[in-house]
């Protein structure tokens, strides 16, 4: 049980590192799907003792949304907006990986210093949650395309989700549903915006949006 939990968390760390080092947009989408699946399993595993309809629904919904619907939306956006395969970084892949590796111990140190009341079952997951958030933010900052920013945003949300599991254990399900809906709408809107940006400007480079400012 503990073993399984820790290997899931380890998978999360590795998936983040894969994201940082990966060069292809489609890889991003695959990793996002994987992360959604891991999170769903994590939720399920934590409540294995007292399984309820609500937990099942939540983890099922989470898996459905994060590992099927979002990737499908993103793939569609890639196809429609005719996104070039490369992610086009501001910070190179190797440098990104090294930064990721440096971020990991920083997050462990940060988590040890945080005066937080942790759930006993999830004590080890707080640093990993922080690391996931940091990776998401890093992706937003260091990648050029609008699509990669959507991905960064999703990773950030995943990190927040894990930290919530670590801190509260069980979030009121109305809040969780709210968060899920929130992300869904965000991804949906970003998909549309991406398509529109692409149609107007023939590309989706956000750094060129600066030509719009007055």
């Amino acid at each position, binding site marked *: 049980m503990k073993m399984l939990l820790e290997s899931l968390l380890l998978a999360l760390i590795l998936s983040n590192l894969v994201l940082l080092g990966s060069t292809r947009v489609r890889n991003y989408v695959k990793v996002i799907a994987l992360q959604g699946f891991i999170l769903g399993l994590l939720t399920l595993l934590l409540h294995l003792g007292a399984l309820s309809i609500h937990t099942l629904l939540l983890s099922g919904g989470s898996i459905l949304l994060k590992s099927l619907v979002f990737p499908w939306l993103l793939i569609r956006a890639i196809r429609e907006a005719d996104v070039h395969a490369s992610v086009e970084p501001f910070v190179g892949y190797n440098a990104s990986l090294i930064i990721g590796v440096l971020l990991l111990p920083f997050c462990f140190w*940060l988590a040890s210093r*945080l005066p937080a009341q942790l759930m006993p079952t999830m004590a080890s997951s707080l640093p990993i949650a922080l690391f996931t958030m940091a990776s998401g933010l890093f992706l937003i900052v260091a990648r050029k395309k609008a699509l990669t*920013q959507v991905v960064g945003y999703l990773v950030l949300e995943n990190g927040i989700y894990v930290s919530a599991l670590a801190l509260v254990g069980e979030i009121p399900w109305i809040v969780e549903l709210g968060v899920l809906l929130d992300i869904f709408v965000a991804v949906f809107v970003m998909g549309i915006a991406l398509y529109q940006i692409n149609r107007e400007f023939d590309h989706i480079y*956000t*750094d060129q*949006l*600066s030509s719009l400012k007055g």
Partner: protein
Amino acid sequence: MLVIFLAGLACLLLAGMSALVIGKRLRLATWVAVVGVIAGSTLSLVAALQILLGQPAVSARFTWSMPLGNLVIGIDGLSAFFLLPISALSALGAIYGTGYFASHGTSKSSGLPWACYLGLVASMAVVVTAQNALLFILAWETMTLASFFLVIFEHRKTAVRQAGWIYLVATHCGTAFLLVMFLLLGKHAGSLDFDQLAAATPLTGQLAGLLFVFAVIGFGTKAGFIPLHVWLPEAHPVAPSHVSALMSGVMIKTGIYGLIRTLGFLGAPEAWWGILLLGIGLSSGILGVLFALAQHDLKRLLAYHSVENIGIITLGLGAGVLGVALDSAPLAVLGFAGCLWHVLNHALFKGLLFLAAGSVIHATGSAEIDRSGGLSKTMPWTATCFLVGALAISGLPPLNGFASEFLIYYSSLAADLRSTVLDNTLLVIIMGGLALIGGLAAACFTKAFGMVFLGLPRDRLPGVPHEAPFSMLAPMGVLAVSCLAVGLLAPLLLNVLALPVLVCVGGTIEMVSLTLGIVRQPLAAITVTSAVLLSLIGALLFWRQRMLARRVVNSAVTWDCGYDRPSARMQYSGSSFAAPLIKLFGFVLGSRTEYSPITGLFPAASHLATHTPDLYQERLYRPLFMSIARLLKQVRRLQHGKLQVYVLYIVISLLALLLWEMR
């Protein structure tokens, strides 16, 4: 009482909303708005008069979800007094404006300007009746925004937008000071309700002094104290005339109201507050009228006269504060009384003058004094109304402007100070300053009336001069008659001032009435004498007309300068009339003259142009704001439109905060 006032307020808001909704149907929207303004103003006028005639002050308290206090609205003597000009002038302005918004609009809808007009009226009424600082500030800002949108009514013109921006920036800088002041007051008293603020333990001397300075800056920006006046000569000329009348006649007075109200929260005033106000009053009065003399644009000239009259009002206020601080009842009571009465009188005659100027511009299409002339023949009624306004603003008896200035004069004559040299010098300065201001104002309006209405047209004007329609003449007529009536009945109307003055100085109503009584007899003597003189002149004129009726009357050129064929361009111009005074005060005005001198026996064409920019804007504000802009340009580097870097800013600041917290 309060119910009547609130019903009036509801009338205004309802009519404003309706006008906004049905804005596309121009005539209907105009009708709804005008009927709404008249109904609302009448109701609030009734409520105000009831309070002024002796009914006890009223207030209502509602709870609301804002912190520190309740929604308190009420009418006491001071509020009621300020409600008078607000109600009267807004109704008259609305009637005047019926034709304006429809014919001058750049957009198809006249709903928005009317909604703003009604919003302005309603917010002014709330400003003077709010008894909670938060409600006051909300109404104050609504007033600012509504008037801003009215100022930029003709927003297609660059000059109008520029003036609008100056107004908006200036007034917001003022509001910043007010916010800080009210927050500090509220923190001290633990509540933002006015009654709590007034009842709180006295502030320490330094804090009270600081808050007083903040109030002077904050309210003075709206009122137009020099050097905070820069927005007035920009905004008034570009706004529609009835809006200028409303803004100059009553809106800037809310600054005076706010200052008086705030004085009530600061505890016993110190002598230097009064001296500061006297200084501001003197400089605003004298510089205002000097700059007015140097102007070529009729509405700009009137705008500078607003600065001048605010100066006179502030002189009265300063005298009143000084009187309270030095414990001299006549100085305090008569000073405040003169201040308040001049507020009302200025609303009447400045409203009249702006409306008359609007008629002139409506008819001729130009506000340039040196191009017009001879309009008294084509626009006799407008000319008569303007003349009445000009006489009143110059402070000549028996018109209303004289009565209020006389109160301020008399306050310093009757002051029973324990004669220290400085105090008595101050009194002399008040009188001397008022006399200088009055004389210069008379010169200035001789120029304005003489150049615009007398003589012959100096230039070919865009429009054909014609008398204004009845809807524009009627409000002017009402105002002109009120100027005369208030002047003639001044000795009887003194009692109305007792209640508002009581709010300012405290004490008992008997003491205030008694002190006001000492001025009644001299005022009555002067009024009666000048009224008799005036009717004598009228009788003589009438007699002359009778005598001439049966004879042949030839009209000839008055003065042809020895030319064989004089042209209208050779007439004395406004600039030449004002030139000696401008030259005399050149050191404070900084007028610029462009002149190509005439040389040789057969000179080529030459030209002369004078220009008097606002000294404070040129020398103080422009350099200041330019350097601020230069400084802030450095900050623009942070804002370059790169989304990624914006997120990086957020990440960095979040991380920094986190690390700071974990230190």
